[in-house]
């Protein structure tokens, strides 16, 4: 198993998760990286990804896992980077014993919302202690409600913007909805912020593991 850590930045962040998967598959073909096929009636390459990124959100840390044991991590990294659109370049490649299953294990992500929030630092940071915070949003034409309070781990205002750690996976909280809810609460104008997923995290009780730390037990 090879775990490829890559970015998704710039215009390619407007490519949906399902389309990005096709981009990744084609990259493997171009790069001549062999991937084991599944054993079923319709064999397909065995690959896994981390949690889907909402459209328009950039990322500094995405994971793409492939069933490949015949190349070194370095060879995979080079071949991958020579064949991927520039917005999705790989940063690292790990050689692992088995699939770390990011989709199951990663339950929180850290996002940076770029912008100047310093003047609202106090008001925003206090919101993380809310016991209940119900928001309404449009989901495929119908209005839905969600209590986002239990899904927010932390909100912190720094010089670069707002850093938030929120639930990802199941249950899931979209970062753009949090920003929009904050704007609602503080009566700020709604606009499209530049949001970047900066870290994927595994949080159990009070123990916070970054994805790299979590990966250690899988690395060969």
């Amino acid at each position, binding site marked *: 198993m090879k775990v490829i850590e890559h970015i998704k930045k*710039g*215009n*390619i962040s*407007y*490519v*949906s998760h399902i*389309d*990005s998967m*096709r*981009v990744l*598959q*084609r*990259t*493997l*073909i*171009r790069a001549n990286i062999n991937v084991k096929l599944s054993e079923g009636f319709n064999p397909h390459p065995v690959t896994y990804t981390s949690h889907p990124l909402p*459209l*328009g959100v950039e990322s500094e840390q995405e994971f793409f896992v492939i069933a490949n044991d015949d190349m070194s991590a370095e060879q995979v990294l080079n071949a991958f980077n020579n*064949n*991927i*659109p*520039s*917005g999705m370049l790989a940063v690292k490649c790990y050689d692992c014993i088995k699939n770390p299953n990011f989709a199951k294990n990663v339950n929180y992500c850290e996002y940076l919302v770029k912008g100047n929030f310093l003047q609202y630092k106090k008001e925003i940071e206090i919101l993380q202690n809310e016991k209940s915070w119900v928001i309404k949003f449009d989901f495929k034409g119908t209005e839905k409600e969600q209590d986002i309070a239990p899904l927010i781990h932390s909100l912190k205002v720094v010089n670069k913007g707002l850093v938030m750690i929120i639930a990802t996976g199941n249950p899931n909280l979209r970062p*753009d909805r949090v920003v929009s809810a904050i704007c609602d609460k503080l009566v700020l104008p709604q*606009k*499209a912020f*530049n949001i970047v997923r900066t870290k994927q995290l595994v949080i159990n009780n009070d123990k916070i593991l970054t994805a790299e730390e979590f990966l250690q037990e899988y690395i060969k």
Partner: protein
Amino acid sequence: MDNKLKEILLKVEKPARYVGGEFNMPDMNKPCSTRLCLCFPEIYEIGMSNIGVRILYHLLNDMQGIVCERCFAPFVDMGEQLKTNDIPLFSVDSGKPLSGFDIVGMSIGYELLYTNVLYMLDLAGIPFRAKDRQNGNYPILIAGGPCVVNPEPFAEIFDAIMIGEGEKNLKEFTLLYDECKKQGISKSEFLEKAACLDGVYIPSKTYPVVKNGKITGFTCSVKKAVVQDLDKEYFPTKILVPNIEITHDRAVLELYRGCNNGCRFCQACFYYRPIRSRRLQTLLEQGKQLVDSTGYSELSLSSLSTSDYESLHELICGLKADVCNGNVRLAMPSLRLDSYKSEYMGSGRLGSLTFAPEAGSQRLRNVINKNITDENIKNTIKSALEYGYTGFKLYFMIGLPTETIEDLQGIVDIVLLIKDMAKVYGKSKRPVQITVSTSVFIPKPLTPFQWERQIDEQEMLAKQRFLIDNLHIKNVRYNWHSADSSIIEAVFSRGDRRLLDVIEQAYALGCKFDGWSERFDFDKWKQAFDNAGINMSDYTREWEEDEILPWDFVEHGVTKKYLLSEKHKAYDGVVTKACGKNSCTGCGANKLGRCYS
């Protein structure tokens, strides 16, 4: 990218259509003196599938000092957002507004795209007519694509129109522009010089002389540009790989240009002559490079009639051995009914077999010169059934010259024949599914049928009704092409300069994306014709043989005399055999370049 645009992108469907970033994108930041933007007046998924745009985009970007970008028609949701937010239409590659380019080119694929040309210009803030752009710093607007066979309906929009093959005229036009720009030569002086190039039509210099509403001649003529040696001509092998799924999401090899069959309704057949092919070795190399550089798992062998490529068997074997390695599927469009061989078919799951007999009876097939016999049809069905096919898709045309009810009955008879034969030769227990599709005959310029009338709406509906009633058979589906849009297509395909008023009126009434059946609004088009004071029937009528036609100023190689003789042969039911290396039929195309060289 500014924040306003980011907000918009999150509100529209498939924002990836508008942002580029594909793999194999050429260097847009290289030092350059001339910037072009090639536009395709349809959405990204369709425009990116166009092989012409693909070739020219890479060809221009491979030239020193030239950068070429792309722009596609934003879908209605994006168009509305751009309008309300006052953002001018921009290129996909670098997000630069269209009005900031030196040259903006439109590839016009078919008649129902004309309103989309105006739609894109409107969004870009560029005035529609060339005469309205004389004062002001606008890009030079040019057009190309299959519709330039008769460019007259849109001629007055453009400063220049490329007639013929872009590898020749667009390349020379761009080089000349680059040189003139460096020397500080004015736009009008440059256009004057460009008029001397082969295949460059300057509508303000070459125009029809009209007396009493009839064309009596032209100020000068234009010779179609033709690539002389297709084998040595540029073909991109490191092509863009889109990040979203496009309509034809595959690598494409172009085997040859032109077609030797000479079906009398087919414009492409005559327009793309002389017949020139690529060598087997060249295609094998290009196929390998394409598959390696893109990662595509499908390679299409494209041409007007792929089964007529002389080394097709060797090409397929060669590609299967060296390129495919079991992972790449070969796709073969446009197989002729009589050329069907089971070895051409893929080894995977059997789909349905698609063929186009075009007419139901032998008599009518002789009239249109579709050289396949009842015997060919029977043999093909037999071998396909024995091979295990359980689906057939059949394409026909209705409203062809001399068509009678017996010819329509012939369509029904072919369907019944397949059903009968399936009982004898069918391998599968599943019943054979047959889909019949009919389109309406449209008399196209530069074909032997260019003088023919188009049947009127009532006749179309009656013929369709006959087929609906008679194809009401178990496991048979009948699809038909809308009568309304066929009329509009016919009007514009043989239109003249007066029709630009109609296009403008139609756009003002809200017509765009007319090629999408759900968006086509015939009532608005009727209104547009009324507003412009023009009768559709003036264009769908039968034309006199001695009339000067709006597109007669173009030297296409294929002569009017030849087309006329073919028309007469059609009425006599005489077929013209497909031409070949040693059997020239004398169409005249070889005056512009050697056939079968």
